[in-house]
């Protein structure tokens, strides 16, 4: 009973404290009024009666306070009051509050965002059952020196049948197809042909319907991705059983897969030496799965179209699988001539997917952690300074009986308010930051769609702020207790005694540390920027400006691919001729060409032989084959270095022709290939010319040797259309019109300028560079704020000293020199430490750099100059203030 009544009172007095106060006042006033009346009745005059009444009552305010003290809500009320006081204090010095909150918020927010990204991409396990048992089985080619090749289908069947260490092996084959839905434009989709056991092996369950089963090989079935199902089919719950057209062939949809089903596919393709299909086109998700029929007749042993993903038998290590499969591969090599020089490379799936991004992400995490450190140091420094400024106030309040506990509680409350506001702002920044990261991240960053702010990160942010609250609270409170009350009251301690100087040294040391960290990050950023600039200035071997690219795929239903009459494919060749004719008569088009892969797509390689070469010489590595139409080199501005290119003389049934690039000429023909012959795909060709190198493996790779062959002799069904002209919009319309004028059912996709393609190919470098630059800017700004803070503090501290100096004849210039000197000293120390640190740390960056050494002196010098300039800028304001010190005033203010 009593407890209930107690709780009731407590609640009332907490939540209706104001009302309770007013009621108490009313009660007391009532009492005094009655006492006054009593006095009047006793014969006193009203004024005297009232005075006596008040006296008898003995000080209204004190009793209100005492009465309130009994209310039992002391603690909570005081806390509320402290919070209100803290907020008022923040309003009074808004710039200080803003700097502290902004600094903390930036530190917390940036870290939360980056950590969320690292967590989503690196730390979370693959969304498959028992993902540690999954491996990718690459084939290797000792002659070409490659180690991440796709495998042949017969090899796949042999591995699957014969391996004991690999319990289950699946084959996947990426492709792009046209998706036709009744009454709508065909869409270009990415497709993964996968053996039916793939999804059960991974442990992926369908969202709707079923996955493939044994016996579904090659059947006209399809599984849709969740994104495709929602985007194109309106999340139709009855989708299973409906029919769609893939490349004009009707297939039945049997189910829908969740968006996690294609985890890692993009990265496997990205890591492959060739056969990357849609990965090269910039697509990163699988839209549909079709059941692959691993038919050795359709995919003979000399072709290598499939990637193999397997599950190790329980308890088996990848190394054991490597050894066993290598032995099987050696056996196959002996049995089949097509497998000459072929081996295997077993790699953990996780390593394939996450390995390439681990270093840059961890570097970014380290950098942002340093930014947080700098932020915390700055805030601590600022609070130390403020603690000094307030020590007088604190002393007075202590002397007036403020009570240590009370003061400490107040400072803690203040710290909590700062930390709370900063945490809230930091979380908001983190959410916005994550959204930005997801938008700006390169498409092939694994699982970037799963990156979201997660509870652990929030918890860490809150923990950091709670810690900050404690520290902020304890620093001024500790200062309040640390020194002699009297000394502080007299301000004697501020006259340049040992304690403030000690504090200044601490702050200076902190600032030097900040500068060092900032210099390290800035150097890393500088190296990345320099690499990026180097990459963008590499000549890709062709002129990208003014060229528009579009892509087509000719479906086999309308453009038969009969290999028995190859290369005589009348429909395909007819289409090529018609399209080129149409394009050349399109206004605005200066030149047009067709090619298989476009100039920034790696395309495929093939083994080849050189006529007249010593047969006992070691086998040649496979060479990239680039099918092109006659106008290709002109359209793309690739120089012809010797001989000629082919034109109308390249007929389907005419003599085989080819052109090689300079790299091929140097690598295989001692620089003089014209007139020699090479053979691949069973036909011999005469080399008629040499052209300049194109960097179709990416501008940051050396240009590979390549052989160009005419599309009239090597017809393609995956075509790139390249047109040079003026306005890209008009060109795009022209291309679409030309294509659909000939074949209205063809989908034209991948339409962009080659400059856009070039820029897109650099996104993997751009992303870490931009982030690192952002962190460097943040770190430097914070460090400079720190320098400014310390110098201002110095000026304040030594104000009297400066006044005395100037009174004794020093000129303002000398005083400025003092301040500048300190600023430069700090900068120099910070720079020295930072450059040393950078020297040691930038080795970690080596893998990310291009055309730049990790210890590139120019970058180090630039960063040094930047830091010195910034430090000088930070000294300006305090120096000016020092110069303005009025000696007379400071001497008087003793």
């Amino acid at each position: 009973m009593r407890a209930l009544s107690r709780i009731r009172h407590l609640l009332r007095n907490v939540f209706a404290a104001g009302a309770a106060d007013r009621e108490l006042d009313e009660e007391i006033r009532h009492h005094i009024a009655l006492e006054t009346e009593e006095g009047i009745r006793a014969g006193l005059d009203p004024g005297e009666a009232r005075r006596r009444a008040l006296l008898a009552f003995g000080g209204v305010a004190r009793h209100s306070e005492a009465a309130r003290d009994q209310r039992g809500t002391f603690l909570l009320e005081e806390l509320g009051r402290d919070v209100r006081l803290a907020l008022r204090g923040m309003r009074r010095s808004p710039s200080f509050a803003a700097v502290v909150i902004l600094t903390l918020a930036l530190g917390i927010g940036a870290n939360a965002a980056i950590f969320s990204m690292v967590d989503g991409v690196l730390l979370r396990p693959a969304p498959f059952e028992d993902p540690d048992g999954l491996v990718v089985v690459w084939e290797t080619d000792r002659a070409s020196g490659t180690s991440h090749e796709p495998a042949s289908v017969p090899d796949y069947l042999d591995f699957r049948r014969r391996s004991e260490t690999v319990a289950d092996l699946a084959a996947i084959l990426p492709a792009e197809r046209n998706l036709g839905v009744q009454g709508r434009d065909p869409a270009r989709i990415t497709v993964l042909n996968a053996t039916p056991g793939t999804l059960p092996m991974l442990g992926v369950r369908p969202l709707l319907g079923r996955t493939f089963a044994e016996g579904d090989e090659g059947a006209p079935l399809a599984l849709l991705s969740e994104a495709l199902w929602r985007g194109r089919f309106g999340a139709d719950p009855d989708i299973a059983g409906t029919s769609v057209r893939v490349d004009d062939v009707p297939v039945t949809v049997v189910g829908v897969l969740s968006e996690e089903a294609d985890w890692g596919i993009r990265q496997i393709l990205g890591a492959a030496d060739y056969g990357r299909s849609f990965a090269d086109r910039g697509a990163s998700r699988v839209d549909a799965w079709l059941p692959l029929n691993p038919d050795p007749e359709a995919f003979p042993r000399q072709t290598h179209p499939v990637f193999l993903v397997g599950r190790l038998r329980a308890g088996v290590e990848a190394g054991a699988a490597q050894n066993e499969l290598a032995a099987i591969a050696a056996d196959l090599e002996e049995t089949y001539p097509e497998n000459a020089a072929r081996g295997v490379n077993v790699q953990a799936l996780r390593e394939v997917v996450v390995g390439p991004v681990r270093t840059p992400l961890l570097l970014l995490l380290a950098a942002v952690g340093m930014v947080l450190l700098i932020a915390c140091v700055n805030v601590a420094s600022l609070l130390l300074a403020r603690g000094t400024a307030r020590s007088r106030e604190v002393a007075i309040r202590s002397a007036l009986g403020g009570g240590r506990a009370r003061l400490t509680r107040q400072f803690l409350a203040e710290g909590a308010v700062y930390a709370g506001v900063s945490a809230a702002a930091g979380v908001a920044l983190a959410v916005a930051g994550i959204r930005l990261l997801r938008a700006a991240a390169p498409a092939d960053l694994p699982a970037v769609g799963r990156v979201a702010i997660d509870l652990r990160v929030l918890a860490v942010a809150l923990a950091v702020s709670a810690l900050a609250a404690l520290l902020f609270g304890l620093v001024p409170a500790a200062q309040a207790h640390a020194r002699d009350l009297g000394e502080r009251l007299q301000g004697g301690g501020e006259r340049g005694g040992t304690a403030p100087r000690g504090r200044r040294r601490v702050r200076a040391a902190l600032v030097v540390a900040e500068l060092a960290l900032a210099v390290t990050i800035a150097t890393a950023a500088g190296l990345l920027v320099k690499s990026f600039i180097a990459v963008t200035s590499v000549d890709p071997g062709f002129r990208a400006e003014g060229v528009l690219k579009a892509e087509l795929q000719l479906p086999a239903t309308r453009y038969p691919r009969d290999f028995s009459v190859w290369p005589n494919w009348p429909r395909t060749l007819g289409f090529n001729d018609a399209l080129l004719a149409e394009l050349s008569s399109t206004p605005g088009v200066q030149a047009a060409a067709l090619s298989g892969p476009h100039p920034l797509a790696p395309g495929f390689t093939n083994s080849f032989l050189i006529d007249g070469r010593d047969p006992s010489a070691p086998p040649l590595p496979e060479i990239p084959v680039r099918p092109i139409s006659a106008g290709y080199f002109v359209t793309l501005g690739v120089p012809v270095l010797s001989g000629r290119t082919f034109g109308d003389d390249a007929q389907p049934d005419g003599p085989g022709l080819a052109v090689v690039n300079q790299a091929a000429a140097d690598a295989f023909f001692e620089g003089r290939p014209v007139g020699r012959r090479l053979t691949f795909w069973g036909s011999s060709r005469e080399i008629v010319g040499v052209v300049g190198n194109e960097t179709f493996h990416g501008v940051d790779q050396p240009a590979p040797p390549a052989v160009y062959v005419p599309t009239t002799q090597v017809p393609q069904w995956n075509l790139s259309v390249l047109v040079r002209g003026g306005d890209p919009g008009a060109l795009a319309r022209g291309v679409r019109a030309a294509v659909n004028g000939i074949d209205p059912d063809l989908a034209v996709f991948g339409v962009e300028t080659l400059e856009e393609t070039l820029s897109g190919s650099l996104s993997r470098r751009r992303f870490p560079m931009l982030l690192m630059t952002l962190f460097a800017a943040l770190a430097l700004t914070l460090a400079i704020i720190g320098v400014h803070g310390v110098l201002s503090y110095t000026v304040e501290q030594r104000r009297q000293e400066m006044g005395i100096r100037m009174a004794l004849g020093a000129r303002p210039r000398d005083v400025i020199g003092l301040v500048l000197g300190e600023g430069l000293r700090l900068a120099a120390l910070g720079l020295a430490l930072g450059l040393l640190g950078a020297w040691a740390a930038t080795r970690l960056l080596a893998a990310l750099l291009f055309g730049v050494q990790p210890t590139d002196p120019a970058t180090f010098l630039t960063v040094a100059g930047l830091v010195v300039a910034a430090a000088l800028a930070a000294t300006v304001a305090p120096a000016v203030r020092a110069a303005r010190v009025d000696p007379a005033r400071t001497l008087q203010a003793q």
Partner: protein
Amino acid sequence: MGERTDVLQGTLDMLILKALTPGPMHGWGVSRRIQEASSDVLQVNQGSLYPALHRLQYAGWIESEWGVSEAGRRARFYHLTGPGRRRLEKEKEEWRVYVGAVEAVLHAT
């Protein structure tokens, strides 16, 4: 902060409870009742009255509500609760024991 009080804190509580036995009363009235009942010997320090009233309220021995005084003014009236009555009896008993003990000491040789 200690204050000079004419009535010891412990006994003030008991006297207030006793003063409310006849019926509900406001703060001033309570101090009047005590003064009159003691023939003006006990002067309730009015500064300790209200803290005591709040203390007793917090402990649940008395409760209050706003009402209208004889003069027509709004005032807060306090009244004893059941537990308060029992508490008063207990305190009276304790007081007798205390007084008896003090007397015994004073009369010992």
